[in-house]
């Protein structure tokens, strides 16, 4: 099968790969580049476990073809902690018992990050709406919603 070159920035570093045409970004990240933080829960756009941020937008990497990502700036949960210091969202998920099996966590954190980047002081409804594309079968969602709200509070205290 024909291979196509793709080049993009992943968590701040340049990546270049040859992928088979039709390869999803999810599979390219996981199998070729070795970033397994986005998870494949359905490969059909229904669970949100594969969520990544492409040029500031929340995207399902299982429905995004790698070959359409040339030149893009891609962020995943694996690149969120800076210099070994957890991002406030990661800290809040950790402290707030917002992970159980953890399979939905990287996707949840991506969705929450896009929300907080745009809406630093979200309402509970904003959080619920922002996470509505992400399935969690373990937590019952409440600890996740609370973690996002508490990360937002921590952020605004740091800014103040």
């Amino acid at each position, binding site marked *: 099968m024909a291979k196509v070159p793709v080049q993009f920035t992943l968590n701040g570093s340049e990546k270049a790969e040859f992928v088979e045409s039709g390869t999803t970004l999810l599979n390219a990240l*996981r*199998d070729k580049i*070795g*970033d*397994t*933080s*986005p*998870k*494949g*829960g*359905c*490969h*059909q756009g*229904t*669970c949100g*476990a594969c969520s990544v941020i492409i040029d500031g937008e929340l995207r399902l990497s299982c429905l995004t073809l790698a070959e359409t990502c040339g030149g893009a700036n891609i962020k*995943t*949960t*694996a690149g*969120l*902690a800076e210099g070994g210091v*957890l991002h406030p969202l*990661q800290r809040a*998920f*950790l*402290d707030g*018992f917002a*992970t*159980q*099996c*953890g*399979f*939905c*966590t*990287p996707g949840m*954190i991506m969705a929450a990050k896009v929300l907080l980047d745009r809406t630093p002081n979200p309402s509970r409804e904003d959080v619920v709406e922002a996470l509505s594309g992400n*399935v*969690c*079968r*373990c937590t019952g969602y409440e600890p996740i919603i609370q973690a996002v709200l508490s990360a937002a509070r921590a952020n605004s205290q740091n800014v103040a």
Partner: protein
Amino acid sequence: MELRKDYFADVRTDGLNEIGQPRPRLDSPGHVTGKTAYFADRNFPGMLHLKMVRSPHHHARIRSIDTSEAEKHPGVVKVLTARDVPHNVYTILILIQIGPEDETVLADGKVRWKGEAVVAVLAETERAAQEAAAKVKVDYEVLPAVFDMEEALKPGAPLVNEYHGQNYYLYDSGECRKVRFGDVEAGFAQADHILEQSYQSSPIEHAPTETTGCVVAPEGNDRFTCYTNTQAMFFTLDNASIILQMQGSKLHFVGGTVGGGFGGKVDVIVEPIAILAAKLTGRPVCFIYSREEEMQISSPRAAEKVVIKDGVMKDGRIVARKVTGYTDAGAYSRHSPYGAQKGAAHYPGPYTIPNVWIDTYCVYTNRTPSSAMRGFGVTIGDFALEVQMDKLARLIGMDPLELRFINAYRDGDMKAHRQPTEGAALIECMQEASRAANWPVAEKYMAMSSYRKGA
């Protein structure tokens, strides 16, 4: 969290240093940084992908299987059928002597449920495996199927599973698991009221966010490392050892990280065939359920039917309880004979009833095999029992919580299956629930104790 140390203060021996203390989960740092390694995060060069050809029929004889076109498909490395599996007929509970072996790893001569695995295709890519699987030709003779437990138990019903010879699991006690305690008919004769009700449930899918699967890597020393999300590591290792007729020392299982299980990952389903494929090809093999397979193929919680007949006195004492429980195993046993057995012990509920009669049947039908799920064998029963308790309370015009205090089991009471009650805290839990829910009960109930009789 508030810890009420006044309960059991005079019998408590521990200091409870841990309970009530917030402790971080050990695995959370990996989860929030995306570093936790799930089985599918292992990738090996040259890894093959396994896809199953599955039965489109609920019940059918297999006349012939033709894999020649699939084998020719570009990228296909190997196609496996029943004759490739060393010990093809197995049952997982054989490890605790619950037989007979009744399920095939790959169908041999017959399929008994829609979705049953028939042929395994191994290819260089997932897509090639999928395309080749569609080229396997299976000639079926469709047989009459049965989907309803009570229909399945009638004489003349289609026989689902020849390894059993009848559509129910044969316990050492006969066609059902039985509990007999006191004289249930005498209890009904003495009762002021009789209430008979029937409750039923449908299968429930666990729907874990991570689908069932494994990755197997052949090692240089004729050993195989199996990365799996099974919830039952050694159970799976031992069953794989039987199915593959391979010493357990040849198998190295790596797991413990499960992306949601809820009981849905305790069947031995993906590992043996993936290890066999790795052995026969000498290549790493990945077998992951698609989301569709997870929802349609993996075992659900069994459908159940529970018929409860109670005799109750005007003062609230339940004097007789007769329960007939049916557990729909689907086409194969898996964990269901055990689930139905648990139900037999459980149906009196957390209540002391002097006259009890219980029959629980584990029934075979042409439905997806069911298995474990959170409290299987008792959860649906609890739903039925507690709805029944509310109905009894309404029938005699009594507060439903007070009815439960009157019948609650206490330390020293003999349970119907002849286990004396120990460490019961039901009374105390209900007292606390009464306060927390602001559902007051008479003072005499608030003065009761699980372990101080007469108090």
